[in-house]
């Protein structure tokens, strides 16, 4: 067992400021967990890979700011970055690449085999069951508006014509339906 293996994550991260090679050892330990974290929350293997790469790039670039505050502080620090990246992604549905660009890193396109392995982390069956249950508990008008807008991808004008109501009403139903769906899935 080598020196690196004996070190705690916090020690590796703190030491990587002066000895950047230590970060590679930390990378080996943390990448699978990060990928799993993002895959289970975005349900998209490529997005999960991009977010994991961007999180680690930012962690590498700002590793000098890490302070060892005891067991678990490295994971707390790393997952705070991850949480921010995920939050931004959820708001814009676009993964930032600022940290990777700053470091001159390239985006990695996933191959079919990698996608399969990452998707294996996502319990689609369980999530699908939850979505179906939550969808079924929506009010009928919201469920119909959501189905036409989200699943069929119809415009608000088209949906208004189909349902015989104004576009504003359709927007309100979709918005309320999504919120309720999100709340049920969160719960």
């Amino acid at each position, binding site marked *: 067992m080598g020196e690196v293996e004996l070190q705690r994550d916090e020690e590796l991260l703190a030491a990587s400021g002066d000895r*950047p090679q230590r970060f590679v050892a930390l990378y080996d330990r943390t990448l699978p967990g990060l990928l799993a974290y993002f895959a289970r*929350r975005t349900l998209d293997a490529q997005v999960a890979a991009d977010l994991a790469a961007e999180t680690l790039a930012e962690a590498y670039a700002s590793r000098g700011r890490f302070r060892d505050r005891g067991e678990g502080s490295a994971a707390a620090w790393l997952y705070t970055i991850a949480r921010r990246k*995920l939050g931004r992604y*959820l708001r814009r549905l676009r993964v930032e690449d600022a940290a990777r660009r700053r470091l001159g890193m390239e985006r990695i396109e996933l191959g079919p085999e990698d996608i399969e392995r990452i998707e294996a982390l996502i319990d689609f069956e369980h999530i699908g069951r939850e979505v179906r249950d939550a969808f079924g508990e929506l009010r009928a008008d919201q469920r119909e508006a959501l189905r036409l807008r989200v699943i069929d991808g119809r415009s608000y004008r088209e949906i208004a014509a189909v349902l015989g109501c104004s576009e504003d009403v359709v927007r309100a139903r979709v918005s309320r339906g999504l919120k309720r769906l999100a709340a049920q899935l969160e719960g």
Partner: protein
Amino acid sequence: MDAEERERKLAETRFAAELRGQFEVLTERARHPRRHRRWLAIAVAAGVAVAGLLGTVALAGGFDPDPAHLPDPPLPAESVYPMNASGDTFGPNKPLVEEPDLMAVMATNGKVGYCYRTELVGSHQPPGTPEEAVAGNEATLRGRMIPVYESDGVTQIGVFQVGGPGSKSIGKQADGTTITQEADVDGNIITTTVAPDGATTIETKALDGTVTTKTLTAAEAARLKTTPTPKPSPGASREPDKPRAWLLARMSSLARDAGDARATARWELQFREYLKRIEGENTPASPYAQSASVWLVIMHGDFAGGSWRYWLLDPHSHEVISQGQSDQPFDTSRIPPPQGPITLGEKL
């Protein structure tokens, strides 16, 4: 296959290997040759100085280290920041959440507005080469301007100054040599290198790239430290004391508006904090300070409401940032104005 085994298998993916390769290249590149360390130290010190100006957010928090138990991030609708029509969040930085896209700042003209985070953090980018480190550091010391917008991120209302005269970067080498860099108001970069034995080299680099070097022994450097800056004798030419044309015109105008066109004036370029707080919905818990170069102008005269007034002027827009007055005597000895006084209205 259980979840643990699935995660273990991720390490064997092509993605994991390629990303690892990229980090290996980065860490190799980080091993800079010794001769480059001096400039990197300076650049990093400058980065720290700038970070101090901009403010940072503590990253650490009390989270469960097990990723599976970590709380989900807030949903878009629950963002702590308001969002403009372009979908960009804006407001003063809040701790323990993501930073807004448009960060609240105080422009040099005193207006409260927002700078794009990407433009503010540009100064934190690590240099790729020693030349880039030098150029980036000098640019920071000379100061750079970032547009300040309304919350729409489009309407520009001023500029935010990062760095500039008054900011320093300090680096220390392993042998104890200290290197200090700063810019004067004319944009010259002055690099002072002090060896452990006190021997000092002062290098002045002008905007056109001309470099002049002065070497002092430890004794000479110590003498220079204790010798006050010589002041011009009363009979000497007043040329060096003349304010810039715009400043003189502005002071005359301010004196006239205040009620005494022939007031006496003192002035000084200072790097200081001013305008302490952003008011409004997103007022941060602690006072917010803007540090920038400003002209402090103090005038004595027969003004309405008092015998003296002061103004802070933006050196770029020439606008008044703030002002004050009093009918109480003002002790100018507390401020060491290297210039003036002059009597406005007199031909200089």
